[in-house]
């Protein structure tokens, strides 16, 4: 039981929190800008590398310093880059058919990745040097301290998202535009401002998710792409355009992935670890076929 919780469930929650943060940006872009943003994973990766550079620059070594000081700065820088990308590449295509936007985001995915790879090289790096302390609670729970920070940080950010969406004018405008961009225009809502807010929220969260993932594992130029499919799956599972759905979906998928390698029946893992990435995909296809609007009744198509 302890093994189940410490080595499968808790890692699942950690991974799920990371997926959740990333999926919020994807679902809001889907809902408000109306297209699947394939470049979202690369935004995440870029954010991590920016954070990594800041770590090298400042010499900060403690997790607290990195997460409390450097991460917000990285988030702001990532947001700036994304806003520039929107201005140069997405805004001119605002009125284009969805397929064109998707192809553009596909291209941007490769372009952003090439910039990251060009600037930092492809060797694996770490953002948090040294062995990380483990926590032991009640002689039962055992997990790395950093997991506390990751899950805690993710919950904090999710609450911030909730606050913005529920209590601020722009947040309500975002939800409204996600419900119906056409009606938002007719109502006089400043849709360009809403679009900008969407990019800000998505990019900031993506950077945070990436930094959390890097703290948990390592820094790698393909890390964003590797979790792109699970993030899409999380967004679709939760219902496209529903940020709370994305949070829930992320957690479900993260936990499912980790639990899949638990030896439920007998000795070996239920699913070969090599196929772990297939779980998110299987869940996504299942949702698309059986309940396309997702858990929270988001957009269908």
């Amino acid at each position: 039981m302890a093994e189940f919780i410490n080595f499968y469930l808790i890692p699942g929650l950690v991974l799920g929190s990371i997926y959740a943060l990333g999926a919020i940006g994807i679902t809001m872009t889907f809902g408000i800008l109306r297209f699947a943003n394939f470049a979202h994973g690369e935004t995440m990766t870029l954010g991590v590398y920016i954070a990594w550079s800041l770590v090298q620059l400042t010499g900060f070594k403690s997790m607290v310093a990195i997460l409390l000081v450097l991460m917000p700065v990285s988030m702001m820088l990532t947001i700036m880059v994304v806003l520039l990308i929107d201005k140069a590449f997405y805004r001119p295509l605002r009125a284009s058919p969805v397929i064109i936007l998707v192809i553009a985001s596909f291209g941007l995915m490769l372009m952003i990745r090439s910039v990251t790879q060009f600037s930092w090289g492809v060797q694996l790096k770490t953002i948090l040097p040294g062995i990380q302390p483990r926590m032991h609670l009640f002689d039962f729970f055992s997990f790395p301290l950093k997991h506390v920070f990751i899950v805690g940080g993710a919950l904090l950010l999710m609450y911030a998202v909730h606050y913005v969406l529920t209590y601020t004018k722009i947040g309500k405008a975002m939800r409204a535009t996600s419900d119906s961009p056409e009606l938002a225009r007719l109502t006089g809502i400043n849709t360009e401002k809403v679009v900008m807010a969407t990019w800000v929220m998505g990019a900031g969260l993506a950077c945070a998710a990436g930094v959390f993932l890097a703290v948990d594992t390592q820094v790698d130029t393909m890390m964003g792409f590797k979790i792109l499919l699970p993030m899409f799956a999380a967004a679709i599972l939760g219902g496209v355009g529903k940020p709370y759905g994305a949070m829930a979906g992320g957690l479900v998928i993260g936990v499912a992935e980790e639990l899949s390698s638990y030896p439920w029946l007998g000795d070996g893992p239920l699913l070969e670890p090599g196929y772990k990435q297939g779980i998110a995909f299987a869940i996504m296809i299942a949702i698309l076929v059986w309940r396309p609007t997702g858990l929270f009744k988001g957009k269908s198509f």
Partner: protein
Amino acid sequence: MSVLELDNVVGGYGDTQILHGVSLHVDAGEIVVIIGPNGAGKSTAMKAVFGLLKLTDGAVLLDGNTITNTPPEKVVRQGVCYVPQTGNIFPSLTVEENLEMGAFVRTDDFKPRLKEIYEMFPPLLEKRLQPAGTLSGGQRQMVAMGKALMLEPKILLLDEPTAGLSPKFRGEIFETVRTINSAGTPILMVEQNAKQALGIANRGYVLVDGKNRFEGTGQDLLNDPEVAEMFLGGGKQPEKPPAKTQKPAAKKQPRKSGKT
């Protein structure tokens, strides 16, 4: 000078032209109704005001100022509010949030106006924290109209407000329209329920195939045998309405009209 005027507008979507020279106007305090067969261009004429299609000829004037082909977000800011036939509320937002969004372009405190809207539509106050998508059809229409009214517009455009509603609710909606109008807002309304609509209208226009066909006071159109035959189930006797006032000259004037 009319509050709103369409002067011989020509236009459509892409290659398809729908309006072939439509003219109409709405004066202060009026309820003006557009009726006509399906595909006549009624909703299209309304959308033309809001810049939702490309007008290739003719003009749209608001208080005498040209607003032809102005995009919707700018038209709203000029004081024209439009309630489309479908998709006219934000379903996942609460009733109150919907109304708040209606006031988006206001820079002043909208709370007093919110109170007024709740007074006009008491059921909305009761359900203000409910997601608008969970309300009944009639109540959703109220949210849609209340939202549009948050800006205290110069004119309100309603596209088939009773579409899909049961007869009981239809009556309520028409009553609501009259109430809104009594409070001073001129209304341009497209309606399929021609008889009831004309019953509360000052004036009406009949559009066929994207062109003006008939026009006149609500009463005249109700009594007109050709119009009756086309839309009002021809041959039926139109109901006898009580005496009506002439077109009001001042802005605020209580409307008396035939009630159906």
